[in-house]
C-alpha cells in the first residue's frame, strides 16, 4: 500500500491512467458488440462475442482490483481471503453449470444453438455418445 506522500502522488497519476484505460475498455466492449465491422465470429451475437466481451470485462476488473483496490501489493492474507472466495464462486458456477450437461446423460449434441432439448435427452438416458 502506498503510504508515504511521495508514493501517493505517484499513485495518483497511475489512477488517472487506469481511469483512461477503463473508459477505453468500456467503449471497446460496446464497439465490438454494436459495430458490424468489429464483430468477431459470425453475424450477430455468438460464443466468440461472449468470450471477447468477458475477456475485456476481466481485464477491466483486474485493473480495478490491482490498482484501485491495491491488490498489486497486498498482504498474503488478503490474497488468501479473496482467493478462496473466487475459488468457491467458481466451484459454484462450474459444477452447477456442468450438472445438467452430463456427457453420458444428455450427450453434447443436444446443445446445438444453446437450447436444451428434453426429447432428445430423454431418448439418450441409457445411451452413450
Amino acid at each position, binding site marked *: 500500500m*502506498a*503510504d508515504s*506522500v511521495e508514493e*501517493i*502522488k505517484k*499513485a*495518483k497519476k497511475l*489512477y*488517472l491512467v*487506469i*481511469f483512461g484505460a*477503463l*473508459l477505453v475498455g*468500456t467503449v471497446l*466492449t*460496446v464497439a465490438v*458488440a*454494436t459495430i458490424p465491422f468489429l464483430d468477431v465470429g*459470425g*453475424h*450477430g*451475437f455468438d460464443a466468440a*462475442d*461472449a468470450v471477447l*466481451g*468477458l475477456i*475485456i*470485462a476481466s481485464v*477491466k*476488473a483486474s485493473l*480495478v*482490483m490491482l490498482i*484501485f*483496490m491495491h491488490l498489486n501489493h497486498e*498482504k498474503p*492474507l*488478503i490474497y488468501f*481471503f*479473496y482467493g*478462496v*472466495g*473466487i475459488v*468457491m*464462486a*467458481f466451484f*459454484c*458456477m462450474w459444477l*452447477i*453449470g456442468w450438472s*445438467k*450437461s452430463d456427457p453420458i446423460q444428455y450427450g453434447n449434441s443436444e*446443445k446445438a444453438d*444453446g*437450447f*436444451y*432439448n*428434453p*426429447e432428445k435427452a430423454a431418448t439418450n438416458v441409457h445411451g452413450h455418445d
Partner: protein
Amino acid sequence: MEIPFIVNARKDTGLFNSKVGIWLFLASEVTLFGGLFSGYLFLRLYADYPWPERALPVLPGLINTFILIGSSVTVVFAWAALKMREWRKFQIYMWITLICAVLFLGLKGIEYNAKFHHQAVRLSSEGAVQDFGYLEGHVHYGKLDENGQLVEVSKEEKKENPEGVFSANKIIFKANELTFALKRPAHEAYVKEILKQAGDQHTISLVGDYRVIDEKELHAGGKNRAQLEASAAALVVADGAVLSIDDLDEMEEAFLQARAHDKEIRTEFLRASWSWIRDEKGIEDISNLVITTDLWKERMAEDNEKIKNLMLSAPGTVRYKIEPPLTLVWRPDDIPKLAKTELKLRDDTVVKGELQPSPMLLGVDAIDFRHTALRAEAEGIDPLEAIKQSWILTHKNSQGENELKKAWICHQAWLRHLTEKLDKTNEKKGLEGEDRLVPTENDKYRINWDQMVGYARLDYDPERVYQALSDEGSGEKLYRAGLFDLGGFAGADHSNKNYHFPHVEIPRENVGFTSTFTPKWNTYYAIYFTITGLHGLHVIGGAIVLGYYLFFGRKMYDSNPEWLANRVEVGGLFWHFVDLVWIFLFPILYLM
C-alpha cells in the same frame, strides 16, 4: 478496555482489523454474486425459450458504466487526499462520488420505469406452435360506456376527463352475485374495490340470515335445534344487510368460533372412544388400522348421533346479491380462475355473472416470432408457415385491416436486403459452409421498435423499404435508431408524435400470458432485475457509508486522521467492488 489494531496494523499480519473484515466480507460478496451468476448461467444455458439477446437499450448502461468508473477514481482520490491531510480535497472528491451514486441510481430508475410501463403479450390459447408469437408495446386507455362495454380513450381525452379511465388490460365482468368464503378473511382491498365500483347505483345485500346457534343456549338445554336456530341470539347478520367489511368480519368471527367449538367436541368424543378401546378391548397387539376399520364401527355410529346434536354447525360461505348487476373491472392478476359465468378472486371469493368482452388495447412496438420458430423447428414444421397462421398475422381490426401483417411483409424485404449484404461479405471473404454469415434468429423473426417506426414511415411498402436500404441516395433512408438516439434511450418512446405504432385489440381468449417487462415476463428479466436490484442496494449502502464519512468525519479527522483514512479506505474497497460487479454486469446483461 480497548480493542487493539483498530488504527495500526498488527505486526505479523500487517493489517488493521477493519481491513481484514472488509476483505472477508468482499470474499462473501464474491460468492453471493457467484451464486447469482450461476443462476444466470444455468437459466440461460437451459432456457426453453429464446433468450433475449442484447434486448436492452445500451446507452443508459454505458453512461452508468462511465459514472461508476468515475466514482471509483474519485473515491480513491478522496482517500489519497486524506492520507495527505487535505480535508477540502477529500470533501470535493467525496461529493463527486456521492453525486455519481445518485446519478447512477437515477438512470437506473429511468430504465426500470420504462420497463414497468412496457407490456408484453404471448398470444396463446391452445398452446399450438403458432400461438407462441409475442407482441410488445404500451397498453392504451379505455373506459366503460353506458352499456358496460369497453371503449378506447385517447391520451388527450384522458387528460380532460380522467374519471373512470383505466389502462385497457382488465377483466370486465357483469356480476350479479358474490360468495365469500368465511374460512379465511376476505381480502379487505378487494371488498373495498367492489364497494367503490358499486357506488350508489348498486346495492349488494346478504341473501338470507346468517345464523349460528348460540353456544350458551345450546348447552343450557331446554330448546330443540329448530328453536335454537330461530332464537334471537343465533342471528349474526340479518337478511338484506348491505355488504360491509364489519359484517364480514363478524360472520367470519362467528364461523371460526363455531368451528373451534364443534371440533373441540368431536375431539372429546374421539378421545373418549380411544380410551374405551384401550380399557375395554385392550389393544396391545392390534394396529391402529384394525381399530379404525373394524372395532370402532358401532361406537362411531353411536357417537355421531350424539355429536350431531351438540354442533353449532355454522355455514362456511355467505352469498350476496347485486342489484342491478354491476360491471366489475378487475386486474387479471387477481383472478386465478376465470370462466364465462364465474370468476374466482385470490381470496376465494366467487363472483357469478357474465364475462364481457375484455380485450387488451395495445400500441404495438415490436413483434417477436422467435419462440414460434423455435417450437416449429422442434416439431419439424416450417417456421414461416406457422407464423402465417398466428393470430398476429391473421386477425383483422374493425376496418378489416392488419397493420402488423403489413409490417411483417416489410420485414421480409428488410431481411432480403440483409441476406444479400451478408452474402456479398461471404463472397468477398470467401466464407463457406458453417463460416458463412447468415441472419440471426433475431434478424429473421423479430421486428424491433425502430423497424416498426421505419416501416410505418414508408407506408408499409416493402419495395420502398428495400430501396431505402439498398439505395443510399434515394432520400428515403430507412429510420434506424442509432446508439445515441434519445428517442430510444430507454426503449420505444410512445409519447413521440413522430413515431407511429399500430394499435391492436387483442381478445381476452388470445391473451395467453402477459406481463410488463418485470421479473414476471421471463427468466431473463427476472435475473436482470434481481442482480441489478441487488447491485443498486449495494450502491445505496456504499453511498450511505461514504456519506457518513463525508458528513460526520470531521471530528475524527481532527482527532485521529489516520483512523478516518483507514475507514475511507475500507469504504472505498467496498465501493470498488460494487464497480467491479457492474463491469461484469454491463456486458453480460446489455451486450450478450
